[in-house]
């Protein structure tokens, strides 16, 4: 006889645990592969999951097994033309006698091992050891969120918070102290009284008895009525206390130069950098706001869509962006409550007098209130060869140079090609060892 069992509703993903173990195990290799993969992605695809190819050596499962060599015999099907004694030249790839299949049956051969990571796994690995530095400022003046905690008992409150146990304890204490007669006492008297009342032939003694009992009964009843079972004085409520939860708030300002001096390539690099930043913040922090400011000779705060996909061009005046940033801060992000971060990407060219103004703005107004400010200068290949290694750069770079030494929360780096973005990003946001 057969038992037919429907298992389709059973919990799925029994292999989820194993998959996670495998990912953990291969983590180091996967990370390497992820880092490599990110450099070849489209701007738009950076956020999606990806195909990862890792050499199978690292997570191999070795066994004792034979290798090719020695003297072997084989029996194969499908002989069309051979007779005993025929000698067949071995094909170059080593498969004797015909079209052997390359690759192994278990993925453990020389092939690389290819599989797909989900988006979340990918990003987790990607941003594994990065964080926003110095996230210390918590709200001091206004606290928005409170949490309730139990804090003993109180005399007043709402019925929902009534503590029955305490109330009853008080009530019983009061009743004992006031000597309220208990029901049992009444129940003792009642049958005798009833019995005497129904009889007709009572003599004096019994009549007196009846009178006594009745009197006592009335007295007891009266006392019971006078002392209430529960008095408002007994009632106790649970007490709750509100404790403020400090909230850490952060806002990141992304400043991008989209002027004419930035070519397609430079804009692409800048966008990639900001996408990385955007993903990073989304992945690692729940409550980080991001403000996108792009500038030519004028600055505007824009939405994410326009920031990454917009096609604008014009002159270059960097200080406008900084001014815009300060305006937004004043309007929406009071310094006392928000941790402010800034990231600026530019190609280094600026309207001639403007650089001085930028430096002023930065050193006097922006840097004092920022937790961290990163400047990324985007060069082309030739420029990178000239400036890359030395600590020199285009106009903005040279201007910002003194700031780097003067302010610990300021950092600047060069980028010339896609391959630099990630390492630079990592340098800028590497976890500080405590």
């Amino acid at each position, binding site marked *: 006889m057969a038992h037919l069992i429907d298992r389709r509703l*059973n919990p799925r993903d029994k292999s989820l645990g194993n998959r996670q173990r495998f990912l953990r195990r291969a983590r180091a290799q996967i990370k390497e592969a992820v880092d490599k993969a990110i450099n070849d992605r489209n701007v738009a695809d950076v956020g999606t999951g990806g195909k990862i190819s890792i050499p199978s050596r690292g997570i191999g499962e070795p066994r004792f097994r034979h290798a090719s060599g020695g003297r072997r015999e084989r029996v194969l099907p499908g002989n069309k033309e051979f007779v005993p004694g025929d000698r067949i030249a071995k094909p170059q790839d080593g498969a004797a006698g015909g079209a052997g299949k390359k690759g192994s049956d278990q993925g453990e051969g020389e092939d690389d091992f290819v599989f797909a990571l989900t988006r979340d796994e990918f990003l987790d690995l990607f941003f594994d050891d990065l964080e926003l530095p110095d996230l210390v400022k918590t709200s001091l003046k206004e606290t928005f969120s409170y949490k309730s905690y139990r804090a003993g008992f109180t005399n007043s409150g709402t019925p929902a918070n009534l503590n029955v146990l305490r109330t009853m304890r008080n009530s019983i204490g009061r009743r004992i102290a006031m000597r309220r007669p208990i029901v049992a006492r009444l129940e003792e008297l009642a049958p005798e009284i009833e019995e005497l009342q129904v009889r007709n032939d009572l003599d004096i003694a019994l009549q007196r008895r009846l009178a006594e009992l009745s009197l006592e009964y009335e007295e007891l009843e009266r006392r019971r009525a006078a002392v209430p079972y529960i008095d408002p004085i007994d009632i106790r409520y649970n007490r709750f206390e509100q404790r403020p939860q400090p909230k850490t708030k952060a806002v990141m300002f992304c400043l991008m130069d989209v002027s004419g001096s930035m070519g397609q390539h430079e804009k692409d690099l800048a966008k990639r950098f900001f996408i990385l930043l955007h993903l990073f913040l989304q992945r690692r922090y729940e409550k980080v706001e991001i403000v996108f400011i792009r500038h030519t000779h004028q600055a505007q705060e824009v939405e994410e869509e326009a920031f990454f996909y917009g096609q604008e061009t014009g002159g270059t005046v960097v200080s406008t962006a900084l001014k815009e940033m300060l305006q937004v801060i004043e309007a929406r992000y009071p310094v006392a409550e928000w941790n402010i971060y800034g990231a600026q990407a530019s190609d280094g060219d600026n309207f001639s007098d403007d650089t001085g103004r930028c430096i002023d703005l930065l050193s006097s107004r922006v840097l004092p209130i920022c937790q961290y400010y990163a400047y990324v200068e985007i060069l082309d290949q030739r420029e990178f060869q000239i400036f890359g290694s030395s600590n020199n750069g285009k106009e903005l770079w040279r201007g910002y140079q003194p700031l780097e030494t003067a302010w610990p929360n300021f950092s600047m780096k060069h980028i010339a090609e896609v391959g630099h973005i990630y390492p630079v990003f990592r340098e800028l946001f590497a976890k500080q060892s405590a």
Partner: protein
Amino acid sequence: MTKKATRRKASRPKSLLYDGSEWDFETMQRTYAAIEEIARDDLGLDVYPNQIEIISSEQMLDAYCSIGMPLMYQHWSFGKRFVREEELYRKGYQGLAYEIVINSSPCISYYMEENTMAMQTLVMAHAAFGHNHFFKNNYLFQQWTDAEGILDYLEFAKHYIADCEERHGTTAVEDILDAAHALMDQGVFRYRRSPKPNLREQEKRRREREAYYERHYNDLWRTLPETKADEEAGADEKELAERKKQLKLPEENILYFIQKNSPTLEVWQRELLRIVRNIAQYFYPQKQTKVMNEGCATFVHHYITSKLFDEGLISEGVLLEILHSHSNVVAQPSFDDPRYSGINPYALGFAMMQDIKRICTEPDEEDRAWFPAIAGTGDWRAILKDAWANYRDESFIKQFLSPKLIRDFKLFRFTDDTKDDHVTVREIHNERGYEEVRNALARSYEISAVEPDIQIVDVDLQGDRELVLRHGVRNDVPLADKARDDVLAYVRQLWGYGARLEGVDLESGKTLYTSPTAKAADGDAAFDMTF
């Protein structure tokens, strides 16, 4: 789905079990009953009680990757397999096995919900009766596996391992399991006959064993390397020989030896080795009976579904669908076909079963000459069941492969020497070649031909306690280098001291190579000495 009521006896043509491709539980039961009737009354099969489980394709993937068992302990290598299989399945390179069946009592078989009713019929006949009968009756399975206890044992194993992970950490457990998996092929008893295993009993004894280990230490390790005076040397030699005898060398079951005798493993680690060993032992017969098992199941499903059609229980459309799937399964591309991937056990097995039936019922002259014992006896059912019960692949092929099949498959034998840049064809499918081709094909299924022969032959008890393994080299066939070194590293890790592998040619006795020794302290082992 209409089911006309039949009031008269079976002599009247029966009504269709079902029509159309949708299945439901009632239809499955009805069909199961019909299949069972034929299996039991016509073929005379003897099966474990069946448990039929319907699952989704996701769950099929899951099952696939935990080597088909409904319960299995967790390990990253299963995750790796899962990830790869999922990828292949998603890309469409590989369809899912439409059946998975477990050697257990009750015999559990899985059916995908996406199968049509025709496919479910096929799979039921194939797995729930074909494979089931084979598991229950083949001598290897009877001898080496405990169908009744395996599921409980796996349950125990899963919990024990999860427990160890909690107590000792995932990494420590993973390290042991990795090493044990690498030695899994060398963790079975091949020749020594152990009594029929009773896994439930073993669980009971396990606790006692743990307590025992904790109370005793292995007396074998009392000797420490010391310089001894010459007069005493003689007495020590005898003592040494005595101890080696105690160790029962040479030992083919490397995991067993290490589990029993390693000076550095803790009790829970030994238990883990034991678990992996038991599971390897459980799967050991399956490697040796692939052709027979699949042949048996394919033959059974073919016979039963044909009979169902003959009795009017399934329609032509259903039969066609079944035959279509069947012919895909038993296809054998020739060696020069790009789809060739070895000899298909389904193809060979099925062909041999059909052939045996033919020889019993309609032999020709050649058959009478080659198979005098069975030709023309007529009782093919008995012969087949006897074959399924008492042979394994190698002996089965040697006994029953007929010249006709050799001709049908156009089998030929050739030799391949690395020193030569040509291969030489030796025998083909003609009168002079049949016997050698048959013997060679049978040899290729010998487990010792496929898996390397590696045994523990010596332990240096007085010296540095190095473990000596010997690889019996046949025909100069070497071991894969990197893999060999990796596995040796695992051996050292488990043993706690050095280990070396010597390759000895089995014919000449000459030592061909020695793989390097490294002391355990130098690197990979992460265990403390327990005393």
